[in-house]
Structure formats: C-alpha cells, structure tokens
C-alpha cells in the first residue's frame, strides 16, 4: 500500500471516530448478544440502535470484525 493509500485508510478511520467508543474488551459481551439475536431474528430498529456502539467499534477495528465473522461461521455451521 502506498503512503497515500495508507492515509486514505487512516482518513476513513478518523472520520469514523466517535467522541466515546467501547473497547475490544467491552465488545466481547455485546458481540455474543448481537450474534445470538441476529441468528434468531432480523434486528428490530430498536435493537439496531442498541448495537450502535458495536457497529461504531467494528467500523474502526478490523480485528473485532474478524472475531464477529468467526462467531457467525460458528453459528452458520450449526
């Protein structure tokens, strides 16, 4: 990746930054709830709002995205 591409990637991360964010440790609990709810039913608007902090974290942390994908594979494989 060139410097400009890295800066473009960083710009997206900076634009996605929220005044307050949950960290990777806090994400763990929310991730389980999110995956179980999504597995059982489409998220209602209210639930989607409740998971806003999770979505925001996922937009700036690709490692938690990898963990979400792994959890989804676990449920999808059942």
């Amino acid at each position, binding site marked *: 990746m060139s410097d400009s591409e890295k800066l473009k990637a960083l710009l997206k991360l900076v*634009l996605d930054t929220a005044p307050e964010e949950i960290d990777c440790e806090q994400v763990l609990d929310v991730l*389980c*709830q999110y995956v179980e709810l999504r597995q059982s039913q489409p998220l209602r608007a209210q639930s989607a709002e409740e998971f806003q902090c999770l979505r925001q974290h996922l937009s700036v*942390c690709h490692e938690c995205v990898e*963990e979400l994908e792994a959890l989804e594979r676990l449920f999808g494989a059942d």
Partner: protein
Amino acid sequence: MNPTVRSNEEWQQALSRSPPDEAALIDLRRTLKASLSKALGASWGVDEADLEDFAQESLLRVLDKRGQFRGQSRFSTWASSVAIRVALTQLRRRRAPTLDWESLPGLTPVAEGLAPVDEMEQRELIRALGEAVETRLTKTQRQVIRALLEGLPLVAVADRLGKTTNAIYKIYFDSRKRLRRALEESGYKLEERHE
C-alpha cells in the same frame, strides 16, 4: 450431560465448585474445541495440534474470566467468543509482519496512489492528515498509528511496547480523536458519522 442443554446457571454452578465439576470441565473443553474448529478451521488454516493448544488455553481463560460473564447471552456462546479471541490473538501474533521500529516509514501524501477522480478536497484532507500525523501526535501515538497501518495486529504492537492490547486501543482511539480535532481546527467540516 450434553453441553448444549446446560443452562447458564448450571454452567456457573458446576464451574464455581472447588474443584470445578470434572464432567463440566470435559464438556466445556470439548465445546471450545468444536467451536474453534467450526469458527476458524478452513479460514485460518489451523491444524489439530493448534486446536488442542487453543482449546486448553481457552479453557483456562474462560475459568479465569467466568466472573465477568453477565448472562446476556448463552454461556456457551460467551465461552466460544473468549476462545475465538484467544486463538486469533495467538494466530495474529504468529503471523505478524516484522517491522523495523526505529525506522518506521513516514507518511508522505503524493499524487501516486490517488485516483484522478479523487476530489480536490479529499486530496487536501489527506495532505492535512499526513501533516497532522507528523505534527500533532506524540511519538508513541505516531508509532502505534504507523504500525497499525503497516498491518501489525494490536497484540504485536502491545508486545513491542510492553503494554496491554486495551492500552494500545486507547492510544489508537486518542490518536484518531486528536487527528480529527486537528482537521477540524484547520477548517475542515467533517461529517458526524456517529451521534
């Protein structure tokens, strides 16, 4: 007992005994190994020996963190998510690229890499961002940002700087906030993506 039919309370009771219930420990280890196999197997290319190692380490981590389980999901889901994090942390550490920390590359925005369709304002934003990285961040913040942009996982950055991954995430967060503020102070109106 089939691990899938234990309630959260039954898991907690069995594991909180001293020593923990042997059958529950066997069930939990089996559950963690099966979960890791399904969740990581093909995508991450883990073998049987990896699965055994990760399941054992995960079992200890779950027992250690059991008090943090808040009951907002099934215990088996929570334990599996802990196991996935344990395994991916090891895999990321193993696959982390080697970086020369003393000469991490700077970020020089040049026309190369930018598509002609990129708007003028974005080019300016990127130029200002490159400048802010050099002038507004502390040395540690700059190292963390550059290392992450070079593809280093949080855990490898944490190992190198002798900090926890959560501490590195905090530095990453503070750096992004500082860069955002620098751009706003330079007169850029940034959209509020997260209310």
